């Protein structure tokens, strides 16, 4: 039965690529699961490869890319689901795509990025060897619901995990760290070295104790609600860190340190040495839209996907670190972006826009972003209704030694790539 579904799926993917339909990353899995509900279970239950799940609001794709780079450089064969195809049908599709003609999955590792809402559902079907949990930030409340609801669902699912699943958890995120409390699984914790800072930033999400609801206290904070926390009431505190520093990071930005530490900790737990990891990371290329550098009409553009308050603040920090002069913000409100754009009012534009010489805005909701800037005290910016027009004009005006830093939401990033390199993803 499954052999037939795999064959059918492969033909579908082939045809879909041929006519550029673009639905090859979810439909074959959708159909296969429709015909055989146990398709996925059957495919992985007697597997010869290890499965790693990567979950969290921000950083899934970059962490997956770190893992893939390290594992492949050390001689392992790795396959992944397509970025964004992170529901159950996307995972089934990636399995169909990677079966060989003999109906075998000839790999050592599968690295799957998993949607926040779907993690508990997928865990009912697949028991992975590792679950890497990065963070939970407010993101698309219209689609995902609230952070507390998601973390409770995760916790309930984790309490039912088989013992062999290892957990790699962000100790600096109180809700993620709490997932390791009272589970029977081996659990390793990552974090970063934090500097002293008094209060959490605005729009921090989990500053309440998961155990007793008291207000958490922080000895130091990395950003948002991530840091060295302790509950003054029940004493629950950040678990001891298995890693807080690594000597080489191929990407700027504090948020990438978290992604890197998650990948390094997982790799080390698989027996890969520091030297092997560093050697692998020297050849790292960023995932699409994540600090990716694109050449367009002989000008340099760098894209920083910015999809929620935490990721937007971190992108602004990173471009400030890079001494950016010229930034371009693109806000869309389609399904993958979240239809509610209220979140831009939680981004700290007030303190992060001082150093730029030129600011432009575009996107489906350009005037919402323009209003946000106006109320942040910025008057000197350009608005564009059409993205292609904006891209042409902004790059034409750019000095050849300068870089245009673009901060788009998800669908805006795909549209941008289409304009810049002719295709949305790869």
């Amino acid at each position: 039965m499954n052999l037939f579904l795999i064959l059918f799926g492969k033909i579908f993917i082939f045809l879909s690529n041929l006519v550029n339909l673009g639905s090859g990353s979810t439909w074959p899995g959708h159909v296969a699961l429709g015909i055989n509900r146990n398709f996925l279970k059957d495919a992985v239950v007697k597997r010869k490869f290890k499965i790693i799940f990567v979950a969290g609001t921000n950083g899934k794709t970059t962490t997956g890319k770190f893992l893939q780079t390290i594992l492949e450089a050390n001689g392992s064969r790795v396959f992944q689901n397509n970025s964004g195809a992170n529901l159950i049908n996307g995972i089934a599709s990636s399995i169909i795509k990677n079966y060989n003609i003999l109906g075998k999955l000839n790999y050592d590792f599968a690295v799957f990025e998993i949607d926040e809402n779907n993690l508990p559902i997928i865990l009912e079907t697949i028991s992975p060897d590792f679950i890497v949990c990065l963070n939970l930030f407010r993101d698309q409340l219209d689609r995902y619901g609230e952070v507390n609801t998601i973390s409770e669902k995760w916790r309930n699912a984790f309490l039912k995990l088989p013992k062999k699943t290892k957990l790699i958890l962000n100790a600096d995120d109180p809700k993620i760290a709490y997932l390791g409390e009272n589970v029977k699984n081996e659990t390793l914790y990552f974090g970063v070295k934090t500097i002293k800072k008094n209060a959490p930033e605005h729009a921090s999400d989990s500053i309440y104790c998961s155990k007793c609801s008291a207000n958490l206290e922080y000895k130091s904070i990395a950003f948002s609600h991530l840091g060295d926390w302790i509950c003054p009431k029940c004493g629950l505190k950040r678990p001891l860190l298995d890693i807080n520093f690594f000597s080489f990071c191929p990407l700027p930005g504090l948020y990438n340190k978290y992604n890197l530490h998650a990948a390094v900790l997982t790799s080390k737990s698989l027996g890969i040495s520091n030297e092997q990891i560093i050697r692998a990371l020297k050849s790292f290329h960023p995932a699409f839209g994540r600090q990716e550098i694109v050449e367009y009409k002989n000008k340099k553009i760098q894209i920083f996907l910015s999809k929620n308050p935490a990721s937007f603040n971190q992108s602004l920090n990173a471009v400030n670190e890079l001494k950016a002069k010229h930034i371009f913000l693109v806000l869309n409100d389609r399904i993958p972006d979240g239809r509610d754009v209220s979140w831009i009012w939680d981004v700290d534009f007030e303190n992060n826009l001082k150093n730029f010489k030129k600011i432009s805005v575009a996107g489906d909701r350009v005037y919402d972003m323009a209003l946000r800037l106006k109320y942040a005290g910025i008057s000197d910016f350009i608005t564009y209704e059409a993205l292609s027009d904006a891209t042409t004009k902004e790059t034409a005006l750019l000095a050849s030694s300068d870089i245009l830093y673009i901060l788009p939401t998800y669908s805006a990033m795909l549209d941008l790539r289409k304009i810049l390199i002719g295709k949305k993803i790869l």
Partner: protein
Amino acid sequence: MKNNQSSIVNRQYSLTIGWLYPGLMSTYGDRGNIIVLTKRCEWRGIKAEVLNLNQDFDSKLLNDLDIIFMGGAQDLQQKIVSSDFSKEKIKLLREKVENGIPGLYVCGAYQFLGKYYKEANRSKIKGLGILDLFTENPGEGKKRLIGNIAIKNSDGNVIVGFENHGGRTYLGERLKPFGHVMEGFGNNGIDKTEGAIYKNSIGTYLHGPILPKNPEIADFLIEKALVRKYKKKIKLEKLDDSLSKKAKETILRKIVS
């Protein structure tokens, strides 16, 4: 870079804006409403001070407020706030609402002003009982009411926003709705009412946040506050709201098409 609105130095007027539970009740970009109120005062040379009233705040501080704002929250946070609302605080807040202190209560805060919230599992959470309304969650199987929304208020102004709520709110007979639904769900998805307005207090499900794209509501709150405080007729100076207008038109085009 500087403000595009030159501020007239006129320290004749000052207002205190109270933000109830900014740490606990601030989920949907709510602080945008505070930013808009503050800036629109500043641009007119009115001194605006924001008083953050967090858990365990001294109830007497409620007496210092000229405008009250309270936003939405996650369930856990709402329970913490509920236990922080002492009898003394409830009594004082009711007094403020009855005395016409202008206020904006969004989503969770709006529900909270009512008599009760009946959860999906049928258990009732008591509200503050300041407004004659109640809210019921119809149960797990029923959809949340989510999407862009446009309403018309009693002055005939079109107000836009984004709603996202599981609870259905029903108004008592004599309580006036804030507006009538043109597109979207509103209080309960059935009777076409949205929000409630009582004296100078507005309760609404509209996020977005509501004030940036609907500055006329911000100005309503500011003007009422000044008139109450200085006991004379005050007409607010007009501001350039062309960006707000364009942002509002974007939403209207979206939901009409």
